[in-house]
């Protein structure tokens, strides 16, 4: 299992590797689960209360299904660790962070300075997500209804 290189949480990391979604249904004591790109994140929704870690695998960087998986979990109120694993590139980190990932375990370690620059680069965003950052339209219309 690749090392967690970046983590944006204060709680103790879960040590157990995530079990597959199939196994997870049967192992009622498992607290860590691993989502492959083809898995349906919504299968986990009934069990969110007992999950402490979801690993979302990106076997190739171009397969973007994991971004949707992450948002679906966060939109459903999941607050545990959401860890991106696999082929992660520097230029994807900020997008992943916005989709709700708060831990990153890239197959090959990233240059820390490049990664920090990537996390911090965009001071503004156009879309709201569950990360709580106010989108540009909200700043433009601060004080108006729905803004």
């Amino acid at each position: 299992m690749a090392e967690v290189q970046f983590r944006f949480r204060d709680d103790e990391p879960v040590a157990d590797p995530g079990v597959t979604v199939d196994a997870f249904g049967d192992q009622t004591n498992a607290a860590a689960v691993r989502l492959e790109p083809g898995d349906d994140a919504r299968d986990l929704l009934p069990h969110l209360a007992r999950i402490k870690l979801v690993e979302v695998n990106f076997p190739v960087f171009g397969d973007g299904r994991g971004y949707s998986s992450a948002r679906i979990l966060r939109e459903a109120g999941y607050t545990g660790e959401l860890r991106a694993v696999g082929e992660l590139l520097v230029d994807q980190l900020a997008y992943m962070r916005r989709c709700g990932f708060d831990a990153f375990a890239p197959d090959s370690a990233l240059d820390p300075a490049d990664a920090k620059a990537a996390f911090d680069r965009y001071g503004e965003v156009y879309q709201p997500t569950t990360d709580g950052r106010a989108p540009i339209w909200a700043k433009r219309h601060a004080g108006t209804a729905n803004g």
Partner: protein
Amino acid sequence: MYQYDTYDQAMVDTRVEEFRDQVRRRLEGHITEDQFKPLRLMNGLYLQLHAYMLRVAVPYGTLSGAQMRMLGDIADKYDRGYGHFTTRQNIQYNWIKLEEAADILADLATVEMHAIQTSGNCIRNTTSDQYAGAAADEIVDPRPYAELIRQWSTFHPEFSFLPRKFKMAVIASDTDRAAMRLHDIGIQIVKSAAGEIGAAFYVGGGMGRTPMIAPCINEFVPIDQMITYSEAALRVYNRHGRRDNKYKARIKILVHELGKDEYTRQVEAEFAHLLTQNIEPPLAELERIKGFFADPAFEVGVPDEVDRSDPDFALWVDNNCVPHKQPGYIAVTISLKPVGGIPGDATGEQIRVMADLAARYSFDELRVTHTQNIVLAHVKKADLYALWQVLDANGLSTPNLDQIGDIIACPGLDYCSLANARSIPIAQKISQRFAGREQEIGELKLKISGCINACGHHHAGHIGILGVDRKGTENYQLSLGGCEGADTSLGQITGPGFDEEGIVDAVQRATDFYLANKQDSERFLDTYRRLGMAPFKEAIYG
């Protein structure tokens, strides 16, 4: 037209810095070409046969004079003095050096332009009607809705690694001038019986190797839910679109394989969920954007007549100008298709001339059309002759809008690494062969692609030409009866292909047959639709 505020400007400026950094990491070897590729692609930078190609976004095809002037200057400073306007209302430069790409982006940023998401598997530039704001038949100006989509889709965190590229178009009249139903999502802004504005969603159109016409999946999404609905449509695609085969990865395949009803059901379920997430910009944001697209200060009581005493001018007016909603004004199309020219190409100097004309005669605004021409949307009829004289002096007065010389052609084998055959020389030969006969033949939309990817829209051509590779030699397939617009249809292949000379002859046999058999004022397409393929085939193959 839309103007950036400090937020929009910050996004674009940050992008320039990010791209500079990406190029640096590539040049220093921190990332491989494989890893760099998706990054440069998301900045519109392609590696082509001879050099890098940079594609610059022109959101919904609308430009200010200053932006247009910058495009001309970039052509001279970084390219070989040309820019190439594309079917997606953008502009491409074919001779770019990697080391200079970030400087070009920085120059563009000074006039609120960029190359963000002009390629890559993300949401591309949203296109629209080139006569927006001028057309008499529009319900509203579609561009504010396209601008709302531009902002929503820019750096969308969830949809930047889609199965495949994603193209959207927005129109707001029943006459479709943007090939809306040939897009991944086509939106028609509509008005309900109660007078409410909404968005009709057409999903799953496209060209490429499996051309499909998008079905309507929702006839009326309330306008203050349009972004949420788009997000739902995209999420279903991002999760379930095929990733095993890049030729089956477009949303049209998903919609086709699931069936329209099942896809729609999934979108509606996702939509119901996303409505709880409050992701829709407030109507106040739409109103703010609309403010930028208010009608310009049209003069009233100006003459509505055009002095037609110069016959060359009169011919051009008849062919290249269309009625305007405002009395005394007219919308002008500048053809970038001179006889024997490269479709869509303009020199740096011509681009600046058009910028100046826009400043003088059209409220400082221009449009790029999906047929690779330029529109000045709001010209006073009283100024038309003076405008035409300047165009004429600069090789920009070809009177052939929607005629056989007004060809759409992709870059083909002259530039493109995916091409089977050359497109540009075929376009040049056809336009030379039919020079002087264009009026007689009338409306005839001819479109050429150099391979099955269909960048030249050949499926939608009244006459379509597709370059194929036959045993290592260039060969051309002919199709007839394609059409974009309200009555969208896809062309049918006539039969065996032709070589370079043969294809030009075949086009001539098809048009000769049409002229001999047309009834009344039928266009080529009408005659084809009435008679069907068989007699045309007979005429072409003898």
